[in-house]
């Protein structure tokens, strides 16, 4: 097998209304791809457009350590204050590190 190397996995849980916007942001920040799934949840603020338009989305994105920090900085600057957004970074081992920019 090709060797495993460690990259960052960034996970974003956000209200559904932000889906298009976050996808655009991620692409602008240079990631090679991302995966989205539907989620629900409870948090400390629970401020959102309400149940009418559905719950949360979870975005997972493999990226270089550098990109992942850029993404976190962007999320903090643009979303954390006014939107229901939670995000975290973890370590992930992949084959062909070059794919994850």
């Amino acid at each position, binding site marked *: 097998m090709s060797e495993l190397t460690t990259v960052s996995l960034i996970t974003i849980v956000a209200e559904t209304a932000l889906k298009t*916007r976050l996808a655009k942001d991620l692409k602008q920040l240079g990631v090679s791809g991302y995966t989205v799934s539907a989620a629900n949840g409870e948090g400390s603020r629970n*401020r*959102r457009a*309400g149940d*009418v338009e*559905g719950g949360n989305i979870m975005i997972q994105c493999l990226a270089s350590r550098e990109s992942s920090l850029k993404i976190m900085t962007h999320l903090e600057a643009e979303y954390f204050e006014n939107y229901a957004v939670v995000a975290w970074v973890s370590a992930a081992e992949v084959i062909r590190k070059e794919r994850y920019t």
Partner: protein
Amino acid sequence: MDSSAQVIIANLTSPPVLAFAIGLLAVLVKGDLRLPDPIYQGLSIYLLLGIGIKGGVALRQSDLSDVAIPALATIVLGLLIPVMAYLFSGKLTKLSEIDRGALAAHYGSTSLVTFTAALVFLEQSSIQYEGFVTTLLALLEIPGIIVGLMLGSRHLKREVSWGESLQEIFSSRSILLLVGGLILGFATGVVGYAKIEPFFGALFIGMLTLFLLEMGTLAGRRMRDVKAAGAGLIVFAILFPIVSGVLGVVFGYASGLSMGGAAVLGVLAASASYIAAPAAVRLALPEANPGIYLAASLGITFPFNLTIGIPLIVLVAQSLEGMVG
């Protein structure tokens, strides 16, 4: 029992209104009658498309020159009502300008289900209305949201990304389905419609009943917010629709609509959005508190219109007949 009471009771015992009440009551016993999300989405696609198609079929039979003045009146309403809502809510509540702008966006726009319930009510009461009212619904949906967002963002320091927000508003699914349905109905006409009537026509009230079960649950869940919102907001959410509803009736008569048509425009004016406006406000004006605008539009005004507002506005239209226009 006099006839206005009869009218109100007939409305209260119609299956859709009862389903709303049952959904709301279920929340009180900690039950959950929400439909699975895809079913809810599917029903709202069905309702929007069906309303659009029937409107398009009717529009084709209308004399297009009859539509122009009511359409203009509707757009004027769409610009006027949010300003009124902004000022009115300033008198009745201590909300920030941001939250009042958000309220203005909601009351400036309209609610499809309230509109639909009004049509069902008129048909049951054998009151005629112009076939092109669905066009008025489509026209009233958007301007109020934009005016509301402008009012709410005047004092913000940050830039508002209007381009993105407007794109999102105009290509929103509800507008596309409504306009798409209008085109489909217009193009297919009475002959084509006959083939889909068993689906889009005969089932309509049943589907609406199912949909309102869910709406009742959603409204029920907002009751906590309603309690937190304070008396001023509650008064606003009941009084303002009466004011804007009467204004809508007057605009209707003034632009030459029949009694039924004026009543529909009244209901459109009185109704507050709880789908298109929240989505747009959430994106463009995230500083506004959803607990406020959803409590008002979904928690109070929607149930009020569904039960009392619609028959009331029809009674107003009946009393004003011959006095205006």
